[in-house]
């Protein structure tokens, strides 16, 4: 069974981890081409979750990163790149990660 959701209903949504703690907001979705015999599909590979949310929406990733660079210490920003299969989208209005905050941070610190 498959469902359809509009991208703008996902963007900006708060994302929680399995314990209900806030990971961030959906800032961007990354997609790549998947080749088939009958044609090509674009599939979502990653979810970019961050604590900037609205600022990134308005300012765009480059400017947001530039702001971060200058204000980094003043404004705590955490960004996560989560593969599609580590996201729980059974309820698109309330997306959740499958990993806990600790696991995500560990993954991030490793990268």
């Amino acid at each position, binding site marked *: 069974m498959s469902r359809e959701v509009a991208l*703008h209903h996902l963007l900006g949504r708060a994302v929680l981890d399995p314990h209900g703690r806030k990971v961030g907001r959906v800032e961007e979705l990354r997609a790549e081409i998947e080749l088939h015999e009958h044609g090509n599909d674009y599939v979502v590979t990653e979810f970019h979750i961050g604590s900037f949310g609205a600022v990134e*929406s*308005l300012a*765009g990733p*480059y*400017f947001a990163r530039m702001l971060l660079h200058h204000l980094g210490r003043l404004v705590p920003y955490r960004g996560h790149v989560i593969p599609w299969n580590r996201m729980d989208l059974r309820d698109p209005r309330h997306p959740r990660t499958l990993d806990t905050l600790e696991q995500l941070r560990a993954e991030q610190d490793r990268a």
Partner: protein
Amino acid sequence: MKKWGEIGLGVVTSIGGFLEVGSIATSVQGGANFGFRLAWALALGTICLAILMEMTGRLAAVSGRSYVDLLREHMGIRFFIIPLVAVIVPSFLVLVSEIGGVAIGLQMATGIAFRWWAIPIALVGWALLWRGTFSLVEQGTALLGLVSIVFLVGALKLHPQWSAVGAGLLPTAPSHDGAKYWYLAVSILGASISPYLYLFYSAGALEDDWNIEYLAVNRVTAGVGNLFGGGLALMVLVCAAVVFLPRHIEVDAYEQIALVLATPLGRTGFALFLITLCITCFGATVEISLSGAYLFAQGFGWPWSENLRPSQDSRFATTYSLLILLASVPIAFGADPLKLTNISMVLSAASLPVTVIPLLALMNDRRVMTSHANGWLGNTALVLISLLALVLFVAAIPLQILGGG
């Protein structure tokens, strides 16, 4: 090099197209009330405009996309509505004022009341947009607008104290009537830095097929062109200062403004003032109508170009037609053109942040600007202009209430 011809044309177009009802009216009122002491507002406004135009022009030349196009894609439709409304409302009022300017000029020339001229002016402007190409509309009106050099002639004949003019280029606090002083400063800034100007310039770059090779043309046109244009506006202020201030004349009607040239140049001056008023305001009328159409068409993704036949871009053509015809209605009903001009300039000033601040993001977006993104100098200038825009946003309307006539 062919580019020198384009540079020359661009500069000349900027000079001839600089003056319009807002800059004339606000410079005259500034000069009449405070002599040369508001010259700094003109200088500041002109410099800001030059910087904003260079940037939106560079944006279009490098990315092949207009500022409005990038704004919609960047902000998303939900946030794009804000600049859309914030630009179209003051722009429409300015448009009404420009038609008012032409109408008053024709009233002074023929004796027929300005209300009767409103619709004919709109129809002539509409016909030009309907049948003309972008080059014809932009360059045609701007080249005719070179008649505004008469203000330079008038200023020279009035023998002002040029050292005092120079001193006025540095900001000073007023000795009297503080509210009116700052109100006039704001309206001069609003007349100089009207959003439709740099939005139109960005769209125009695309109409003229600018690409990376045009960066120098862009810099000179935006920089030098506006510098000379601003210089002309300064001459308007100088004329008004010499003619009105010593006699303590309170300027509250366009008919008085004609004295600015009639005094040094007699009847020829009076005639040339009328011609200048009519031509420059008419040029601004068609330009603002087009600018509004670009705003909607590029924002919503419609086909657009002044070089297409109207049947090929019907929503675009309908938009500029509606704008120019609707704008004639208040004037046809007898609205006071000078009062409208003053209000529209202040609203223009207040609306600046929504079109200036997103430029900070776009001019630094390497995917759009590649290696031509802003350096630290450009960003510093843009941040300062953004701060000015925020100050104007907060102060403009209160000052209109406290200091406006």
